[in-house]
């Protein structure tokens, strides 16, 4: 289950929405996913694509997707839920409450902090005195990754690893993807507040160019197949745009409809687990707290915690498929002995991927996982 924010239109396409859906949404047409009731990327599909619509209020999706993940576990679905938040959005109360609940619930939930250096006109260093927004994770005792957000493969692998962790029941993960917003906040904004040198710095790290270079160097496409792809995309965009432009606006009466669900939906959770399992006697109902230590000041930290806290060392691991090699596609944060974090990345097993030829060294590691969860 995913819930893309407004910058994550790509994720909608990956989940099977078409450019026409996006065009018609922005153009407020009757044929849009929301029939013109809402605009921009505010749409989704609960039934088939498992995409939750965002709302404008930043941070709100984080507890919501935590709830999706909790329900998934309850229903036995073995799913992972994921959403994105901006560097700026990580300052909201909803972000904090949602991540904290996810951590306390060990929910299979991934939050990608898309650190594009700016929140509207405000640079990261004015939002919070942190170099790495991944450090937000430390407030919840959960692991985090930092990844070069302009390295498509590194992002893929890191996310893949996070998904695996979640599936393995290890609880939520924050991924900070470092990137740059290369234009204004939106069309109206010339972004004159961004130092020119900063744009230049990031232009050199253009993720498209880098991915193209990778495809070129590894002979994963050639001029001909590239042209074919580009032409197919162009054709689709042109056709969809035309379709959208010719699509009708909704009839005015629609404005009055749909405030309530009055029998228009049949609500049924998708059980993937015997219903008898969820309640006692087959589910746990020990109605008492387990308090394994008393929180005393001088209490000896348990060994596991010690190890995790010991040192912030960096380990080098083999991650096939990263773009820029040893120059650091994913900077290590903290890696000591996380059962699945450091270890998993350390075993160097290439995970399934369409890009198999490059096998360069990059730094990938998981940060300080939380203490053992309560379940």
């Amino acid at each position, binding site marked *: 289950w995913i819930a893309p924010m407004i910058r994550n239109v790509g994720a909608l396409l990956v989940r099977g929405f078409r450019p026409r859906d996006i065009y018609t949404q922005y153009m407020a047409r009757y044929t849009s*996913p*929301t029939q013109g*009731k*809402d605009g921009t990327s*505010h*749409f*989704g599909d*609960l039934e088939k694509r498992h995409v*939750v*619509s965002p*709302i404008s*209020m930043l941070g*709100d*999706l*984080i*507890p*919501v*997707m*935590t*709830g*999706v*993940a*909790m*329900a998934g576990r*309850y*229903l036995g679905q073995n799913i992972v*839920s994921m959403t994105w938040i901006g560097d700026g959005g990580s300052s909201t109360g*909803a972000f904090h*409450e*949602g991540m*904290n*609940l996810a951590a*306390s*619930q060990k929910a299979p939930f991934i939050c990608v902090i898309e650190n594009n250096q700016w929140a509207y006109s405000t640079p990261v260093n004015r939002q919070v005195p942190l170099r790495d927004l991944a450090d937000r994770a430390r407030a919840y005792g959960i692991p985090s990754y930092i990844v070069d957000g302009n390295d498509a493969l590194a992002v893929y692998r890191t996310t893949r690893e996070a998904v695996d962790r979640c599936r393995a029941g290890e609880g939520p993960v924050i991924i900070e993807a470092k990137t740059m917003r290369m234009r204004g906040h939106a069309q109206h904004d010339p972004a004159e507040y961004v130092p020119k040198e900063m744009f230049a710095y990031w232009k050199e790290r253009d993720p498209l160019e880098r991915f193209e270079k990778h495809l070129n160097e590894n002979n994963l496409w050639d001029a001909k197949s590239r042209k074919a792809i580009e032409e197919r995309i162009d054709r689709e965009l042109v056709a969809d745009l035309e379709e959208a432009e010719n699509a009708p606006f909704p009839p005015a009466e629609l404005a009055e409809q*749909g*405030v*309530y*669900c*009055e*029998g*228009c*939906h049949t*609500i*049924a*959770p*998708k059980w993937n687990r015997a*219903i008898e399992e*969820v*309640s*006692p006697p087959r*589910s*746990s*109902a*020990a*109605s*008492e*707290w*387990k*308090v394994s230590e008393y929180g005393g000041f001088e209490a000896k930290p348990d060994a596991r915690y010690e190890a995790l806290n010991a040192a912030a060392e960096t380990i080098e691991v083999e991650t096939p498929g990263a773009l820029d090699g040893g120059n650091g596609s994913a900077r290590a944060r903290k890696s000591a002995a996380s059962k699945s974090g450091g270890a998993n990345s350390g075993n160097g097993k290439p995970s399934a991927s369409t890009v198999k030829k490059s096998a360069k060294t990059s730094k990938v590691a998981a940060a300080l996982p939380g203490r053992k969860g309560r*379940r």
Partner: protein
Amino acid sequence: MPTAKKPGNGNGKAPAAAQAGGEVTFLEAIRQGLIEEMDRDPSVVMIGEDIGVYGGAFKVSAGLLERFGWERIIDTPISETAIIGAAVGMAYQGLRPVAEMQFIDFISCCFNQITNFVAKSHYRWNAPVPMVIRGPSGGGVHGGPFHSQNPEMYFAHTPGLKVVYPSTAYDAKGLLKSAIRDNNPVLFFEHKFLYRRIKETLPAEDYTVPLGKAATRREGRDLTIVSYAAMAHSSLEAAAALAKEGIEAEVIDLRTLLPLDREAIINSVKKTNKLLVVHEDTRTGGIAGEIAAVVFEEAFDDLDAPVRRVTSLDTPVPYSPPLEERFLPNTAKIVEAARELAKY
């Protein structure tokens, strides 16, 4: 690893399992409603603060953890926004979460999630949010400004929500069941003054009370008193007192504030030609205004007198007993207003 035994029934009052029906308090009726719905439907889960091991600040969920387990009785950190957010996510998965506010006053902390995420979801993108948000509301127990609030109008003014505020044990159970089974987000206010003060004998079998329908609690011909929650009781007391003076008041208990049962109000006004609205919520912007507008729209020609209202003062809820008494409506104030209206 030492553990502490769960008290289950904390103060030794609430049994671990529900007996359907029987003579019960308002609180116990709600608890029965929760248990029966959770028994009936595994997609019903509860989420809130201190609702599991402790059984809730008012013990509404006492014994439910033993009965339904950790996965269905979900204790959270102190994070109202996360409670509502997570409930939305669960609802999107087809579950029917019941979220508890420890005191309804704290609903202000998740106002954004409720009014923007929850309320607009179905209209905006056709995604229903079957969930209930419930909690102890209202004053009269010297709870002070932050443990006595009546926030119903904030939500009755928000399209997409339903707002329920029952006054009897029978209704509380029946409306709660309807709310849980409804496909829409329902705010369910439980007047804490009533929790342990009223008792009724409930039917043993499953029953529901429909949302959106008011109840006529007493018939009368001289004027109509519209009210809800604790004030429905004060209104009935007032009607009894008025009857002794020869004034026959019809008493309508709204039960649901949104959608409002316009028909019930209008029919009664057509009969009595006079209307008094009583609410414990503060005056300006309370539901009496909305009802006044509705009466203008549908029964102006039937009126023999202006619509009147008896409400709380336009202040925060003060803590000290004499202040709170001045702040709140009560039977005497209702009688006085009704008497004047009858004379008009």
